[in-house]
């Protein structure tokens, strides 16, 4: 029983990181149909920027803020340079373009930060034991911050005019333009959201899961799987998908074999794409138009 609880808890905190990365995929995909393969690199870059900032003597919180802001800026620049100039964006074109950006960012990170994996200083070091389950303070931070960020993003889409205008672009792009919403501004805003949320995921995960120039690949793919579980168009679906994936992974690693951990995501992806292409929490009627 203690083992199960331990695995569940570890799975939830891992899943919360996936959830944040998944929100980034959803934010961009709904507005422009772009699948951003550089989403994982946003997280890795944020981790590395924060680590090197702490290394050069900046206080942890300042380093984290710096990392999130710089990655948000990178996301915005990426949109203007790579997405905005394309006249007829299709999902396939977007895959090729963002794969290019992802590769470029990885090379840049390798060049600047070197090949080693490092962990950021945790917000609160150490751990405690609760009924035999060992809990790291950082894991609590992950759950807390990921929860707050997810709710904030959800609130943004449901309650604010800017959020509603993004949903309008996703549902009826022509009608959105006719009421005066600029699709190019909407796309830029979606990248800003994805960059910010991805960066937060990166700095939260770094103390436990470590960050290197190539850690964005796995994180990005897991986030993508989580987003797909939720149908790629729903923030709620992305969060649930992330948590589910995290838990399934740790349960597999704990009860079957650690070697199978990474296979879980892709097995899930195949099953969902074959059986329920709209996502396991999605309704087909919500499909992007």
């Amino acid at each position, binding site marked *: 029983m203690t083992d199960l609880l331990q695995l569940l808890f570890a799975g939830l905190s891992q899943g919360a990181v996936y959830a944040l990365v998944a929100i980034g995929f959803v934010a961009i995909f709904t507005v422009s149909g772009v699948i951003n393969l550089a989403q994982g690199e946003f997280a890795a870059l944020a981790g590395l920027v924060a680590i090197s900032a702490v290394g050069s003597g900046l206080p942890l919180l300042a380093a984290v803020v710096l990392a999130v802001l710089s990655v948000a800026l990178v996301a915005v620049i990426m949109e203007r340079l790579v997405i905005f100039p394309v006249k007829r964006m299709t999902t396939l074109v977007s895959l090729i373009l963002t794969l290019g950006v992802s590769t470029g960012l990885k090379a840049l990170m390798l060049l600047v930060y070197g090949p080693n994996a490092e962990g950021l200083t945790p917000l609160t070091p150490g751990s405690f034991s609760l009924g035999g389950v060992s809990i790291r303070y950082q894991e609590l931070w992950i759950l807390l911050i990921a929860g707050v960020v997810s709710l904030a993003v959800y609130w943004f889409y449901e309650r604010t005019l800017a959020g509603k205008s993004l949903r309008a672009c996703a549902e009826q792009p022509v009608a959105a333009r*006719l009421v*005066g919403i600029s699709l190019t501004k909407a796309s830029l805003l979606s990248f800003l959201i994805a960059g910010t949320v991805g960066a937060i995921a990166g700095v939260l995960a770094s103390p436990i899961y470590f960050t290197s120039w190539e850690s964005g690949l796995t994180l990005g793919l897991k986030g993508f799987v989580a987003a797909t579980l939720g149908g790629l168009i729903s923030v709620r679906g992305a969060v649930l998908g992330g948590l589910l994936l995290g838990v399934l992974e740790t349960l597999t690693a704990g009860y079957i074999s650690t070697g199978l951990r990474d296979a879980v995501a892709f097995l899930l992806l195949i099953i969902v794409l074959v059986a329920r292409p709209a996502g396991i929490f999605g309704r087909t*009627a919500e499909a992007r138009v």
Partner: protein
Amino acid sequence: MSLEVRGLHAGYGRLAVLHGIDLTAGEGELVAVIGANGAGKSTLLRALSGLLPVTSGTVHLAGTDVTGYGPEKLARTGLAHVPENRLVFPSLSVADNLVLGGYTRRRGPAAARKEARDRAMALFPRLEPRLEQAAGTLSGGEQQMLAIARGLMAQPRVLVLDEPSVGLAPRLVGEIFSALGQLRDDGLTLVVVEQNARAAFAVADRVSVMDRGRVVLEGDPAALSTDPRVSGGFLGGGFAADADATTEAAPATGATRAADRR
């Protein structure tokens, strides 16, 4: 003139669809543009509202040259386009659809936004009890009302509508067109593109008949409705038919017959 179109050419890539359209609509005037399927009516509206680039010609809105404006800028300048098939935002509530309709006025006075909304509600009282419902759950007629109300939320000077009657029962068509007539009486300028000529003739101040990218006839609805060229040729039978499927099948024959008569 609220809306003045001169020598408008537009098309899709190398395919020219509009060959020099002239169209005017004065303040408080309801102009109907009718024609068979494929005559270029929707293309005209798409060019008017900036969805489609203009190849040549000019568009003036209340004296301002708006040729080449994109849809966002045109919406701000005072042209609202109610698109074909309504295109409401389905997962958003009716109230949110209206809020987004006023997107270009979001920094304007709240009182003006509220007034626009009150007027839209007075025009379509059926929407009032549905405000919190998702727009996608409304009936076709209610969605059309919502699309018009959303257009009005932009506080436009000119409202252009693309086939507001399509797919609606005759009773609802009558309801929609009498609302359009009411808007005209309140001083709004309207341009309505329609295949359902009977509904359009009943409220229009002036009618333009389009055929293959040109305005071929223009005038008073009473005079035009008895014109054999209208009932026989250019509409492909559309005048005789109410808003039903027979208009869908007719365009090819309509175009050939119109050509024979020249």
